[in-house]
């Protein structure tokens, strides 16, 4: 996986079956270090886009058609174990979060979220980079 240029933006991919959520994340992410390189509406499309765009950071919904988020997390981590994945889901129970983290996600943000919560979650994720 290509590393971002020094001080250059990190590449962000958004995965969510909701168009309004994808667009909202695109609009609200105001972290200068992130550049949106693509968005996908299901896990299968996300894996294909991941190979093509090689993002550094991914926001991942869990409940999606064709391939769900947890399975997609596993696939992405198998391709690049250094990718940072923030799960963004309405599935607010602890077991779901633990499962996603165990499969390779790095953070969990519950829907619905404010712009501030999203940015804080991404900042926290990037602090691990």
């Amino acid at each position, binding site marked *: 996986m290509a590393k971002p240029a020094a001080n250059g933006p990190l590449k962000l991919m958004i995965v969510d079956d*909701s*168009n*309004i*959520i994808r*667009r*909202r994340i695109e*609009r609200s992410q105001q972290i200068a270090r992130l550049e949106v390189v693509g968005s996908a509406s299901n896990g299968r499309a996300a894996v294909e886009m991941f190979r093509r765009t090689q993002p550094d950071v991914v926001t991942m919904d869990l*409940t999606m058609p064709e391939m769900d988020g947890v399975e997609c997390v596993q696939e992405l981590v198998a391709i690049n174990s250094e990718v940072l994945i923030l799960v963004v*889901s*309405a*599935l*607010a*129970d*602890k077991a*779901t979060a633990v499962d996603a983290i165990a499969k390779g996600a790095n953070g969990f943000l*519950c*829907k*619905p*979220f*404010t712009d501030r*919560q999203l940015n804080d979650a991404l900042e926290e994720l990037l602090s691990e980079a």
Partner: protein
Amino acid sequence: MLKESEIRTFIEGTTNYFEATAQQCASVGSPYLVTDGNPGAYEYTGVIGISGARKGVVYFTAPRGMLTVLLMRMQETDTSDENIRDLVGEVANTISGNARRDFGKNFVISVPVVISHDERQLTTPHARSFVIPINWRTHSAKLVVCLE
């Protein structure tokens, strides 16, 4: 018999959505009981099916006007039918997520289904439903809880 705490979980799932995405709280009207099997619906409805410890449906139904303004509050300029359906599905998705968190595995909750422009597609499995009015700005929606 439905517990008040169970109904509160569904209400909080709904009002949290408005608070987080629009930064404007929704208020809850006086709940009422409908016993004729026809709690009614607006143009757009997000339905979740529930089985396990309770059986039935919970749905959030709202008029286009409310959902359009809510989208605009989210800085979304595309207020097409597709995005309105997407939005009402997301509200139902949030209600579903809250219920999973609070009720655990005793409740099996389906992925939301969106129904629009055709109330006839919407059926409740029992005659009795609790209807909770959800008021936001000048608009009114309903949360309908129809559980055994």
